[in-house]
């Protein structure tokens, strides 16, 4: 069996946000049970599980999976920083594609609001102190400042992307941020500066959440939900850094932007599609300027034309290639482990035509992209058929 014979059978998530009075276990259980119900399956049908989170004690995933029942199923932990959820998804898809099981579950959960900050990329590899003085926000700001220098990009461009994603969030009941008014460019620019030129409203929030996807053989999708368009996995690419001149090795978030370009090419090749075939894209917009870079690196416009694509309105709902239709990391939220599975949740709804007020007309192929810690990238393509 091939990857394209694997379908997303069901998805479920709880709204991302600050969940002070809900435990991690409760969040994970809610997302998992919703996904099973959406698939029309019981937990006994699940042949294998992949659990993703960025922090927590060893065995946390196995312990949480007991909430669904003790059936003896194999459980594997996945951690790839911000990319964790999509990598859990990728492993579940391959578990089905390999014939190891008929149904696999990918579950991500996290309480970022309880995360012990202060560590960086060097934590645990023997250079804790020197590596952790620079914030992730600073790294992406460095990227933004260089682009402004090279291409004349203005902070208004970044603010426009942020405002777009905030406003997309308003159309998503599961989004953390749901503004009660139309967020404007000037409002984003006026919010407190974090790392020049990035303001607070250009950055993702700190939040909690859980999300789950059930993957299975394509014929099962047909049998379980015959009335529903099938959503197949047509590509799942994962890469770490390739050495390039100008590489930085020290600091919490390193890695070349070209990693996204290389990973996307691999995904398009695997699926036999072009960027022009893609109906919508979800990307790692932890900071708004990233999304501008990914327009180009994911192949939706030539290098240097990102601002033009944005100014044309192509990447907002109703545009040629809407980006982050569910609000993205900036509005929907970015709790870490579950983020990628929230993207799969959105793509599944969009490709089934169930996305309500934010539905992309005739959505046929959806793309989910995340980078993790600057050092890992994954691009996944889902298709309606």
């Amino acid at each position, binding site marked *: 069996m091939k990857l394209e014979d694997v379908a997303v059978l069901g998805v479920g998530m709880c709204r991302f946000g600050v969940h002070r009075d809900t435990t991690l276990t409760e969040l994970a259980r809610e997302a998992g049970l919703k996904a099973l119900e959406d698939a029309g399956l019981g937990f006994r049908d699940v042949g294998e599980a992949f659990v993703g989170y960025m922090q927590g004690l060893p065995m946390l995933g196995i312990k949480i999976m007991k909430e669904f029942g003790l059936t003896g199923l194999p459980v594997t932990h996945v951690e790839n920083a911000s990319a964790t959820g999509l990598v859990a998804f990728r492993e579940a898809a391959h578990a089905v594609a390999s014939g190891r099981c008929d149904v696999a579950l990918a579950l991500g959960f996290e309480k970022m609001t309880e995360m012990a900050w202060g560590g960086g990329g060097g934590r645990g590899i023997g250079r804790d102190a020197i590596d952790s003085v*620079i914030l992730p926000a600073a790294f992406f*700001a*460095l990227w933004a400042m260089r682009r402004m220098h090279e291409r004349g990009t203005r902070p208004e461009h970044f603010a426009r992307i942020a405002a777009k994603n905030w406003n997309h969030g308003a159309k998503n009941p599961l989004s953390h941020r749901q503004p009660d008014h139309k967020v404007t460019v000037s409002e984003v620019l006026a919010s*407190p500066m974090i790392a*020049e030129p990035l303001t607070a409203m250009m950055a993702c929030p700190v939040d909690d959440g859980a999300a789950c996807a059930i993957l299975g053989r394509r014929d099962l999708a047909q049998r379980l939900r015959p009335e529903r368009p099938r959503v197949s996995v047509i590509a799942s690419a994962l890469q770490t850094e390739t050495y390039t001149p*100008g*590489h*930085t090795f020290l600091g919490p978030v390193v890695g070349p932007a070209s990693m996204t370009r290389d990973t996307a090419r691999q995904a398009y090749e695997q699926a036999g599609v072009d960027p022009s075939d893609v109906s919508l894209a979800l990307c790692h917009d932890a900071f708004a300027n990233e999304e501008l870079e990914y327009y180009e690196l994911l192949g939706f416009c030539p290098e240097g034309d990102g601002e033009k694509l944005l100014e044309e309105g192509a990447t907002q709902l109703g545009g040629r290639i809407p980006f982050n239709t569910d609000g993205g990391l900036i509005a929907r939220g970015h709790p870490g482990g579950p983020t990628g599975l929230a993207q799969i949740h959105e793509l599944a709804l969009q490709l089934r035509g169930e996305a309500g007020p934010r539905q992309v007309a005739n959505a046929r192929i959806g793309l989910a992209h995340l980078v993790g810690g600057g050092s890992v990238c994954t691009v996944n393509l889902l298709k309606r058929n």
Partner: protein
Amino acid sequence: MTQAEKERVPIEKGFFTIPRDPSEPPSLLGTRCRSCSEVFFPRRKVCAKCLSQDTEDTLLGPRGTLYTYTYVHVPMFGTSRTDAQGYGVGQVDLPEGPRVQAVLSGGAEDFRIGMELELQLETLRENRKGQDVVIFRFRPLAAA
């Protein structure tokens, strides 16, 4: 240089030199690959480019060119600094090849892409032995 008489120790060993004369700039401790000549910071045993293990230590700096920078307005990790003024962060291209990500010394308006910078050591805090714990920074050369 009021702290000239105090012993200085690095925040972490193996990344930079601490000259005996506090007015001297430090060097960064890097690696040069004998097979492909690529130079790296920080030090590594295996060449990231050609995978050769035939590598040697090399000193880098003290000068470089600012490739990009930002000014951060939230507190810095790993220090006891609580000043609300923020701090600069940059990527600095060394003539030997490596691009180094580091904290910059100076105010919000002191940086521009392409400017020349020089390494310096900055004291973060005093440890229990009464030694100064130092880290490397880059500062605009004009401000030297």
